[in-house]
């Protein structure tokens, strides 16, 4: 009986979250399609032709997995950060706090919404990319595992950001000062083997390296990182973020006085 109650609550939060990002599709689904089309045209077609091959494939083919992953990261993060913070700001988070919704259910519901948006965006960007370069899949399992773990991790990151945020400015600080630099330095546009030795070592502390390379391994079979290591690092990060989010919600941090 309790399980059914939790399942219904989880389903409700998930439907609510999906309804929200579908209602505002112009803000949530269209921008990544436009941005990524521009990336494909400028970096892939125009500049890419002069770069030639990277990692044994055309530059366009090399950057497609990274660009899809970039959209996944941004979409998962911003969906949960803005939705959860709005719920805090408008105080409709109280609708869940007064009900017997467990903290884990709240986390899974919001993260599920962020992952749903990220996957939909990934699909849209993949379809867009297929106009520029033929779709090549080496390992479907690797693609699914990496995209799910990445979307979940950044949805959890968005939730943590929203829990700590006190103003709308606070939910743009992390994307601007942390997420964007890490993404651009995360091997989306280049192979880390091109970097000097010290920079290659430093790059391995960037979690986005593992996501981009794991995803790229699934598409073109080319990766700077062993796929098993990439998955292991992602699982570990997810476990840490989930534990932190759960313990913060349990304490009522940022949501209960």
């Amino acid at each position, binding site marked *: 009986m*309790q399980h059914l109650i939790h399942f219904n*609550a989880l389903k*409700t939060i998930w439907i609510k979250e999906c309804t929200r990002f579908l209602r505002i599709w112009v803000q949530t689904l269209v921008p990544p399609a436009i941005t990524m089309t521009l990336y494909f045209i400028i970096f892939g077609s125009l500049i890419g032709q002069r770069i030639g091959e990277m990692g044994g494939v055309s530059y366009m083919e090399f950057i497609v997995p990274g660009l899809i992953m970039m959209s996944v990261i941004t979409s998962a993060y911003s969906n949960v950060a803005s939705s959860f913070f709005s*719920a805090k700001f*408008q105080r*409709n988070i*109280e609708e869940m*706090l007064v009900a*017997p919704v467990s903290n884990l259910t709240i986390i899974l519901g919001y993260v599920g919404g962020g992952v749903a948006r990220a996957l939909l965006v990934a699909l849209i960007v993949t379809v867009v990319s297929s106009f520029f370069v033929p779709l090549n899949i080496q390992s479907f399992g690797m693609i699914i595992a990496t995209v799910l773990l990445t979307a979940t991790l950044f949805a959890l990151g968005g939730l943590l950001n929203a829990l700590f945020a006190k103003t709308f400015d606070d939910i743009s600080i992390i994307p601007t000062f942390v997420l964007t630099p890490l993404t651009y330095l995360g091997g989306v546009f280049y192979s880390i083997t091109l970097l000097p030795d010290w920079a290659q070592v430093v790059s391995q502390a960037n979690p986005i390296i593992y996501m981009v390379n794991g995803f790229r391994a699934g598409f073109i079979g080319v990766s700077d990182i062993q796929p098993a290591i990439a998955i292991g690092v992602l699982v570990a990060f997810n476990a840490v973020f989930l534990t932190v989010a759960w313990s913060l919600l349990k304490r009522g941090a940022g949501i209960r*006085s």
Partner: protein
Amino acid sequence: MTYALEISGLKKTYKGGFEALKGLNLTVNAGDFYALLGPNGAGKSTTIGIISSLVNKSAGSVKVFGYDLDSQKTQVKQQIGLVPQEFNFNQFETVLQIVVNQAGYYGVPRELAKQRAEKYLSQLGLWEKRNSPARSLSGGMKRRLMIARALLHEPKLLILDEPTAGVDIELRRSMWEFLKRINSEGVSIILTTHYLEEAEMLCRNIGIIDKGEIIENTSMKSLLGKLNMETFILDLAPVENTVTLSTVNMRQLDDHTIEVDVPKAEGLNNVFSELSQQGVKVLSMRNKANRLEELFVHLVEQGRQDKEAV
């Protein structure tokens, strides 16, 4: 006796040291319609926040229909429907989405939630607005939406924190009728309000809270019984001369209205006979509505004086 609510030794100290509750004790009977009154900042909303799990308590115990808030939180939450003071729904969601989602958080299956939504939104006159975004509703509709939302999981205890603030008289009365009806159907109700007339009209029992403590917890009847003086407004046929009454205090408001203060023990016979002797015709009479207000102010002041004396 089953209690809808049992609170003992409830304390709350906020970060920064403000002590909002100082060991509050309170019981509300099952099936009761209970008014919790107090000046602004007295601790009413903190008490409600703790009962409904929005505020963490510092000490004390809370039981709802016998379930303990510390050890049986899920069961406690299932019993309670909360209508908060401020609008706290997502302004961009539709009326139907808001109430159906709320039921979902309590584990109510979506189909059942939709059936109940039709029932309660219709009863509260909102069914026609079910597909409108909440932000487009009037203030009164938003208040009713919060009541419907609190009822979708069919709680046994409904807590309303100033539900009729800013609502016009006609709508307020229709909300009163609705609340009376659900109370008669077995839902226990706790209400905070600043409209003392509302408490008098609706509630059987009353608690007055000030500075984090209960200073009066009694039946409305016995509280009103403490009033030894009542004020009546008499509508008269227009009089040319000034009306005078020797037995009671009176004020002539205009040529056809007087206000008289009558000791409860004496009754109104003397007033009527004196008016008859002067040839004054009484057309109608009513009780002055703010008598409870006077008593409330008196009790709060007395409570503060007692504390200072101690």
